[in-house]
């Protein structure tokens, strides 16, 4: 796909549909970890598609396509989270969403330590949460996280360390090693 984008073998429409089909699901799940609301995830996913479509020409094959897409999605989420009015809506929606998720999950899944761990990670402040999500959910390495977030690798490491401390406080022991 990199090659395709770089050499413009395909039209922008073809490219955006390819991205939608190939990466849409994982991008939406990433967005959810930021906003924790299904309806807001839908809206932000549309914004992501729009921005990606508009910026397809700017993609350079220096970084991986997925990292580039993650960066766009994360910027969209952060823009949304910065807006004070949307914060108000998010808080309201979040309460409803969590109730819904909890009851649904209880019916279909046995609650495990892992689910509790995910809950704890998603309730961390954004700057810690995002490195945990990218590292342990999306499976990115330090370099890729650094490229995605535009933050030094050393900063990423220290955030992971601090995040681990928070989790240790909550659960005790070394849960994520």
């Amino acid at each position, binding site marked *: 796909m990199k090659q395709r984008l770089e050499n413009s073998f395909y039209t922008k429409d073809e490219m955006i549909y390819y991205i939608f089909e190939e990466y849409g*699901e994982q991008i939406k*799940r990433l967005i959810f970890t930021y906003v924790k609301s299904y309806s807001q995830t*839908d809206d932000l996913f549309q914004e992501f598609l729009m921005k990606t479509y508009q910026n397809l020409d700017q993609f350079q094959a220096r970084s991986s396509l997925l990292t580039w897409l993650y960066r766009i999605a994360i910027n969209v989420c952060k823009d949304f989270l910065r807006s004070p009015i949307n914060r108000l*809506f998010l808080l309201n929606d979040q309460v409803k969403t969590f109730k819904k998720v909890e009851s649904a999950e209880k019916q279909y899944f046995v609650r495990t330590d892992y689910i509790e761990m*995910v809950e704890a990670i998603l309730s961390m402040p954004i700057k810690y949460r995002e490195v945990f999500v990218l590292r*342990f959910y999306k*499976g990115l390495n330090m370099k890729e996280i650094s490229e995605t977030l535009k933050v030094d690798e050393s900063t990423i490491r220290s955030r992971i360390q601090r995040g681990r401390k928070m989790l240790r406080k909550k659960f005790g022991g070394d849960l*994520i090693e």
Partner: protein
Amino acid sequence: MNEKQLRNAFDEYIGTRQLKTNYDKERLNQWKERGFVKRRRYQIVPQVLTVILFFGIIGGLFTWFSSMNSQSAPSNSIVDYQVGNLPLYEIYELNPKYEQLYIDLIEYFISLDEANFLSHPAKKYAEETIKYLYSMESGNKNIASSYLVSPEEHLNQAMEFYQSVSTYEVTVTDIKRISDNKIAIGLKFVNGDETIHRIIHLIENSSLQFIDTRDLGISY
């Protein structure tokens, strides 16, 4: 802890059903055809809330400033301010004698206030009196009748008197409380060589009103 299990836990937590739907694709198509379409809920409501919030803050500040001003104004100070739709300064422009009369009235009423005889600030009585006299002089029956307790016949007679005094000086001769809710205000009109004494009785009901006596000399 197993990273794979943690990854699965993320997926389970977010939901096992697919988040990407055909609706997303439809919206994408719509946007490409007509521009980006956001859900109405989020498009309209924040704007409406912002407008309500804006006007709420403006209204709140206005109310707060109004209450601060009314609290900070000394109750017996001699100040001009608007009474109903008729500002005192406009009355002074039309007849400068009222300005001095207002000051005299204030002084008399303050002396009553010091004796705890008044239930309103002194300036309130003075202003209402000036407004009453002006409404009579200007011949505005609607306003004048709202000040006068007496029947219409009495209103006509009183109005006739005030309108006949074309060039005059008016001074307060005395102000006394004569019953629980009645204050007598003695006024002296000098119209050329002619001196006319007049008493108006100020009634302390919910809105201050008057009983205007005819030319009777000073007696209560």
